[in-house]
């Protein structure tokens, strides 16, 4: 029965596909309407002419200010930049208006088609309301079937007298659901009652599953998309030059990339439409089979359905008979995602990112980098949510063990691969692209590598929630019998919280990745400044601990970094905690505190020990403008030590045993980051002050502490990549060697009826500290993102 999977909090597959469909339609439509908004013939010329005009005005104004000697006054250059952006803004006004009008029209048409579908189907089939006593016993039988399948509201049965096929169809608007029964179906009732009941139950299952709105909205959106977005584009391509009809070859050669983008997106939309329609059929089969006596007849009908005639039929509007039978026999297959889901997610997102990133800043009157970052934030959130959703569904379906390659890992490949492919199919070729193959490759690799831990995290969190819900952890059942541990159902917030967390984290990351991916060698790293008179290990230490981390710098001055980290660590931790895995959580917290303690020790020792290892002239050397003094080197080395400890603690957690290690590693990192920051400011700081190494600072400089915390974490994250990878390999080898998780590590460890308050208190304290640290980064974030530079 379909209800067998209903207890697991999560989305239904048709709903997930529908969300994807809406996303693909929006992406394609935005691209189409934006493209239409520019005059197709002189799009590039229009932009270039305006750019030249604005640049001339900009240069003239700058020269005037330079003559007056006011060019370097505070705020003057920002005002100039704002003036330039304002000058370019009209170029984008028409396309933006076209996007707004186009999307509005598309929605109106889709809504109109949806609202009229019921009227149209009745008119097309010439159906009439089924009279109560037309066929003896029929009304009662239909009412009983409706009751059995769980429909509370009455519906309107209609007979299609011209319909000879023994079939039915559900449709209708909310509050007025209808089912068409073909006359042939009533004839079937006389000869094969179980088959009649199976067909009717299937249609009723559509109503129970709320498929009607989803289905007819899907169809309406598709038709509106063809009518409003595709048709004008085709006409435009055909008539682009002087309003005359052109050959398809002309259009292809002139607009190959645009056409590729549109065809790829159109295919995505079409495939998603069919995926929605297929998914809800399988759900209806499973639900109908749950009605007494229907399952066997339904299976018999499905077994008699003809096999697909063409290979392409598997992507059609109806699922293969074998898939439908599987849905009845194994309802968990209904929520199982496929990698195609992620491919059709990534492709439109990539196309959208590539096409809008060059223009979004100017269109919104913002700094180009900030515009791209906002676009990346939105697209990243979308991608992260979809990845987490797919991984969650696969994890709760519990079929990953049967796969040779972990689903979550393959998901990363599918999503990032399709996204990167989408970025290559874009209009930017027409607008002028500065793409570089090596830079693109590096950017793509970084994106893929960054997505791997996110997918692992989502898989781990979902499995933890699923195991907690079903009591699937072997020892939990025993513990429950003893009254020791009580795993409950998956909290209803678990799925949305995990998806929202993934969205926040991915959005934050892509907001940084996207602008730098557009720059040649945007992800290059570099050594930091050399210490004054520094040589050998001292110079290396100074240059390493102040290394230019490239785009990672944007994570430091970013108000979303720590909230994302906190959510990544705390959401699954709460699930683990409530599932009884409290010792694992406590161990991660202790490891984090241990990292802070280590930072305190290093921070206290460095100002004392370092002077003994360096000659006095080196320590007292005055730095040139591009150099650092001894105090700055010690400062940075202390922060770097905190970062290394953060990475080590993450690796220790990953190398250990027990569930939820990705989340617990991040919890350890969060605690270690905050503890190290406290240690650096309240232990190492006073020692440096007392020993005369570096400046004496106030104990509660929130801005400074926030910056330190961010540097500790961001550097720690980079150092953690190889360490955590090595730890994961160690853990994997141990598992493959047959080392089953130790019972004491894996089992819920709550005894008796523990008080909840220590955990809640700890959670609240952690959130308060994180909030304070995030507040402290507001100035730097404003300077970097909104003003475009740091003072």
């Amino acid at each position, binding site marked *: 029965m379909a209800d067998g999977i209903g207890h697991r909090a999560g989305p239904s597959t048709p709903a997930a596909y529908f969300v994807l469909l809406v996303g693909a339609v929006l992406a394609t439509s935005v691209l189409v309407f934006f493209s239409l908004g520019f005059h197709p013939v002189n799009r590039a010329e229009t932009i270039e002419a305006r750019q030249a005009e604005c640049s001339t005005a900009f240069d003239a104004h700058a020269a005037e200010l330079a003559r007056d000697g006011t060019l370097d006054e505070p705020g003057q250059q920002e005002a100039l930049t704002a003036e330039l952006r304002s000058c370019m803004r009209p170029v984008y006004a028409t396309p933006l208006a076209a996007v707004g009008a186009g999307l509005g029209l598309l929605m109106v048409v889709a809504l109109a088609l949806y609202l009229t579908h019921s009227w149209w189907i009745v008119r097309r089939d*010439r159906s009439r309301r089924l009279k109560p006593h*037309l*066929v*003896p016993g029929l009304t009662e039988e239909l009412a009983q079937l409706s009751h059995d399948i769980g429909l509370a509201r009455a519906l309107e049965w209609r*007979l299609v*007298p*011209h*319909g*000879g*096929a*023994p*079939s*039915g*169809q*559900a*449709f209708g608007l909310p509050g007025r659901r209808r089912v068409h029964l*073909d*006359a*042939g*179906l*009533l*004839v*079937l*009732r*006389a*000869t*094969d009652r179980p*088959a009649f009941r199976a*067909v009717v139950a*299937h*249609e009723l299952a*559509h109503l129970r599953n709320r*498929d*009607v709105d989803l*289905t*007819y909205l*899907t*169809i309406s959106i598709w038709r509106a998309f063809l009518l409003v977005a595709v048709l004008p584009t085709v006409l435009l391509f055909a008539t682009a030059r002087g309003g005359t009809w052109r050959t398809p070859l002309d259009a292809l050669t002139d607009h190959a990339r645009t056409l590729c983008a549109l065809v790829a997106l159109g295919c995505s939309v079409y495939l998603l439409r069919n995926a929605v*329609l297929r998914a*809800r*059929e399988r759900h*209806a089969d499973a639900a109908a089979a749950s009605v007494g006596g229907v399952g066997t007849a339904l299976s018999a*009908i499905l077994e*008699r*359905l*003809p096999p697909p005639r063409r290979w392409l039929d598997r992507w059609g*509007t109806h699922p293969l008979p074998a898939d439908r039978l599987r849905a009845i026999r194994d309802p968990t297959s209904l929520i199982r995602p496929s990698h195609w889901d992620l491919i059709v997610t990534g492709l439109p997102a990539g196309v959208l990112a590539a096409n809008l990133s060059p223009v979004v800043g100017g269109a919104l009157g913002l700094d180009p980098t900030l515009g791209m970052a906002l676009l990346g934030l939105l697209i990243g959130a979308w991608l992260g949510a979809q990845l987490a959703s797919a991984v969650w569904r696969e994890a709760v379906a519990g079929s990953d063990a049967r796969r040779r390659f972990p689903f979550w890992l393959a998901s990363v490949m599918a999503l990032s691969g399709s996204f990167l492919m989408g970025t290559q199919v874009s209009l930017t070729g027409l607008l002028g692209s500065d793409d570089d193959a090596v830079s693109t490759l590096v950017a793509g690799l970084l994106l893929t590598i960054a997505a791997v831990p996110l997918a692992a995290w989502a898989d781990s969190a979902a499995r933890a929630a699923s195991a907690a819900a079903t009591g699937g952890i072997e020892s939990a059942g025993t513990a429950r019998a003893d009254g020791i541990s009580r795993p409950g159902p998956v909290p209803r917030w678990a799925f949305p919280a995990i998806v929202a967390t993934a969205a926040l984290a991915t959005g934050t990351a892509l907001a940084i990745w996207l602008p730098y991916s557009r720059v040649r060698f945007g992800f290059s790293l570099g050594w930091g400044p050399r210490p004054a008179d520094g040589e050998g290990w001292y110079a290396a230490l100074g240059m390493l601990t102040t290394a230019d981390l490239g785009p990672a710098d944007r994570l430091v001055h970013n108000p979303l970094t720590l909230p994302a980290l906190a959510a990544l660590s705390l959401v699954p931790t709460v699930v683990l905690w409530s599932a009884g895995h409290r010792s694992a959580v406590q161990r991660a917290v202790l490891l984090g505190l241990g990292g802070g303690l280590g930072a305190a020790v290093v921070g206290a020792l460095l100002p004392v020990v370092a002077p003994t290892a360096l000659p006095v002239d080196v320590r007292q050397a005055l730095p040139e403008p591009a150099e650092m003094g001894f105090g700055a080197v010690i400062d940075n080395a202390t922060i770097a030590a905190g970062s290394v400890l953060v990475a080590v603690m993450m690796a220790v957690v990953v190398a250990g045993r027990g569930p939820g290690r990705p989340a617990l590693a991040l919890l350890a990192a969060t605690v270690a980051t905050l503890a190290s920051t406290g240690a650096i400011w309240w232990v190492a700081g006073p020692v440096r002050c007392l020993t005369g190494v570096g400046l004496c600072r106030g104990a509660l400089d929130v801005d400074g502490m926030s910056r330190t915390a961010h540097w500790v974490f961001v550097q720690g994250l980079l150092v953690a990549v190889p360490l955590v990878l090595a730890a994961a390999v160690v853990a994997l080898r141990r598992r493959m060697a047959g080392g089953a998780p130790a019972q004491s590590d894996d089992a819920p460890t709550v005894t008796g009826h523990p008080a909840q308050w220590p955990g809640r208190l700890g959670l609240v304290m952690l959130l308060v500290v994180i909030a304070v640290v995030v507040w402290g980064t507001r100035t730097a974030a404003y300077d970097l993102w909104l003003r475009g530079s740091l003072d």
Partner: protein
Amino acid sequence: MRPEADRSLLLDLARPVVDRYSPGEQELFALLSEAHFADPGAYAKPERRSGPLAFGVPEVLVLLTPVALAAMTEAVRYVVELGMRKGHRVTSDALRRLFRGGRSQPKEAAPVELTAQEWAEVRRIVERVALRGGVAPDQAALIADAVVGQGRLSGEAR
């Protein structure tokens, strides 16, 4: 007379065919007849339901009521035209008696008689219409035989 004008005649002639070959339609006969008279050509356009949320058994099921009505319409038209060519006035009662026997026919109704060849033509008409309506060939032949009546056929009709 135009056969479409006398629906009760057609219903009387088609009903026994439906009762015999598709008993499942007995309860729907009135409804299906009404639908047939509203769109007499629909029987020849059998369609499998498709589209969103549609579901049914894969086997083809042909509604016999509209097919029988269409067949009887054609057969009656042929007989009426034949009678007119012979100079007879063909009434509904005469047709009833022709196709269903004379058990309850009024005595004043003029008799209509067909030769063996003409019965064979009636049979061909019924069979052709049934095939056009999607009826399987074997069943179409049986229906045609039932309409004409085995006793009225001479050896060369088949």
